[in-house]
């Protein structure tokens, strides 16, 4: 699993358009949005996935709000572009801007916090209603290392996830439990043949030519 931190700037965005013509392996890029109340450990989860760190940060890590990570599944190189969102209630209404055009979303809650689970449910509802229809949603019960003082039962969350067609795992950014697994599960569930098409449609819902010819598989 290679870490590919973005060089940033225009060159960074430019690579998003590179076609996969030269390589044999398929390569896809997916936009993944993190949703969840503040302090449930969204950014810790991502930092664990991307940098393998918890609490000890490298100097180079300037922010945990936007991170990228590339993983390989079978013959496909999947590049995740992870967009963090502000979890505070007052910024709730801004979230659609972030999950617009996202192929995947992880809704995070804290197993010690019933409120965060309820918030997670509203996120899921909202995603179903407003995000692109084939978005892959995963529900992550974070802070699983503190399961002895849990409030949200595993079975309760599991049942909810099954009812709503979500991926579900209890994770721990602290111990690293299930962190890579949940991203891998998402990557497996994502359609890898032409992932870029979804991206194009959702940004310009007004356009008549929504199926603009985009021959490259990943954008």
């Amino acid at each position, binding site marked *: 699993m290679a870490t590919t931190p*973005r060089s*940033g*700037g*225009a060159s*960074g*965005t*430019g*690579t*998003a*358009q*590179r*076609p996969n*013509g*030269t390589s044999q392996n398929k390569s896809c*890029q997916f*936009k993944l949005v*993190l949703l969840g109340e*503040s*302090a449930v450990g*969204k*950014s810790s989860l991502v*930092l664990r996935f991307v940098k393998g760190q918890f609490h000890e*940060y490298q100097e180079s*890590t*300037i*922010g*945990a*709000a*936007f991170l990228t990570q590339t993983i390989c599944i079978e013959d496909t190189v999947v590049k995740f*572009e992870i*967009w*963090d*969102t*502000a*979890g*505070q209630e*007052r*910024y709730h*209404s*801004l979230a*659609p*801007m*972030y999950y*617009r*055009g996202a192929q995947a979303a992880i809704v995070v809650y804290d197993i010690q916090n019933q409120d965060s689970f309820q918030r997670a449910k509203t996120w899921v509802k909202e995603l179903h209603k*407003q995000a692109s229809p084939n978005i892959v949603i995963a529900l992550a019960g974070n802070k699983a290392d503190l399961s002895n003082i849990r409030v949200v039962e595993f079975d309760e969350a599991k049942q909810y996830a099954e009812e709503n067609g979500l991926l579900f795992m209890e994770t721990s950014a602290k111990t690293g439990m299930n962190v890579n697994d949940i991203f891998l599960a998402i990557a497996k569930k994502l359609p890898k043949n032409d992932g870029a098409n979804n*991206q*194009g449609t959702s*940004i*310009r*819902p*007004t*356009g*008549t*030519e929504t199926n*603009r*010819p985009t*021959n*490259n598989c990943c*954008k």
Partner: protein
Amino acid sequence: MSTAARPPSLRLGQQDLKCRMGCGFYGTPQNDGLCSKCYREKFHDKQRKLKQKAGETGPGPSSASLDRRSPQHGHNHGKTEQQQVRKEDLSGTLQKKKFTAVLQKTLQAGAQKITQQRGHVPDPTEDQFLLQLRQLRIPDDGKRKLKLEIQRLDTEIRKYMNGNGGKNINELSDLVQNAYTKVSDTVHNDPSFEIATNEDRDSAIDFFEKVVMTQNHKFLFSPYFTTDEDSDVKVQKRIRKLSWITAKHLDCSIDEVNSEARDLVYNAISELVGIDSYYSPQEKLQCTWRCCRHIFELLKRATGGPASADDFLPALIFVVLKANPVRLHSNINFVTRFTNAARVMSGESGYYFTNLCSAIAFIENLNGESLGISSEEFEALMSGQQAYSTPWESALLACESLHLISENMKRMEELQKRNALISSRITSFEMELIDFQREVTERVDTVIAKAPLNLLPIKTPAFLIGQARAHLLNESEAGHYQANVLSGGGGTLTSQSLTAVGGLAKPSIAPEDAGLSLKDTSMVSMGRLSPLQQNIQPADNLFASPIFNYTAFDSVSLLEEPSSSDVLMLGSEFHGGLTNINYDFDLSDQSGENSTADDSKLNLDEFDPLAQKGPVNQPPSALPETSLLDSTTDSLIDSEVPGTAVLLPSPLKPEVANYRGFSNFDIPSISCNTGDFSSLGQDGAEPPK
């Protein structure tokens, strides 16, 4: 922000803005309150009708388009300037409201300059672009194709702008976006680009976008048929009204007073304001990227780790509020409409741009609740009824003293807190001290109670007392005792006793002289050499036997442990003491009862005047003689008796040393004092009673 480029899903909290056609989507004011789809349909119908009409009248409009271009341009320009004048008026009226009118004016002046420059942009930049095109690492064939594509889009845009039909910004946006897709398709699949690397292809696409956008910036940036400028003014006014918002309201970790943090915020602000000064969407995005990087840097210092979106978004909102960038909506819309769609949808720049859009949306919709204050307070602050003061505001006003006051006030608050803390700690410390004191006294008391301090009388070994008594008893046999009794008896009797004692003593001299010839000679030599001679001489005059005197002294020293000073003192006392015998015996007698020098002094005072009575007549005449004799004899003795001369390096020392020498000569050590006593005893035994 409020254009149809955004999907309807963004219209949260504006439930009343649904499409007039009732399709369930939201409408926008730009589209006559219709949703974009309904508007498009309606618009297409209109256009079709227009085209039909045009077909009937012939190709008139297209030929006229060229002529109309410049007035069109002028009209556009004129409107922009008109808007800016209005803006300036607004800022003028709001000057009272203390927001950064000066800053705004300068910024607007800058913006105006840019607008003026825009008139003659193409010529120098076109050359530059041609140079850049030549530098692109793509085949010449590709370059030619790229240039062709650029020219084609250029003409298309101008044609659309100069067309007299109804204009819709979304149509224009689609036109540009389609061109982008086409170019991207060409670059990636055309055989003329085959040998180029992916990076070069990307830079070719970037170049295409940059050139077209820079050249057509004047048409595409806030076109006259959009409401961009109105929203610019609206948001600018709103931000100005919201100038009372502090970092605390936003739950943001920026320390407004920290100068280092403020510098970083200023960096972010200058980047944000700088967005307006770039032509191409890429450059605007890069500017946003730089601004956000500054914010992350700032947050990293404030929180100690990489900042998450929870920290970042409030900080960005704070920066936007404090920067109040000009033509905010125009810039945002320009980027959303005319940059390659993927750019704002993905990538780091896209993420930051999304955050900027969110920040603006938040600012436009915020209320008391979203700032954590009551709606009444919010209203009061918005209307300017409630006064406010923030260190940030004063800093922005560039009024250093006001800024200092605010800063000092904050510092004072801190100091006050600290002061309160200190005083509370002082009281607690005081309490502790009292406790400590009590504890110590308690402990001491308990210890004292356990082990009381009893001052026991000094125990003198019984055998010593016995010995001393025995000696004293011996002495009393020798008639001294009587003298002592006499002195103790009364002052009146002393003179009689003195004479009596003198009478008693004198007869005893003769035999003693003969018996102790050796002692005598040594005594004489010593007396001559030492300053004590004067003491000794009168003693000689009075008493024949010096030993007699010294025994008394020795008896004192036995019990008093004489130091050198004591000896000296005694030496001086000797002068008076020698005049009468009583004194000596007094001391020796009292020694048994731990007598002190004071006692002896008392005795001395008692007897001095009486003692002087007798000798005063005699010694004055005798003293000069002896002193003269001494001076002559000194030298003589020096030569005669080298042994004694060696013992006298200084004339003062011998006083003691010689004296000791004498006693040493007679009795070698202290233990021999008993020997002295024994000699005394002999002496005492010798004089007849």
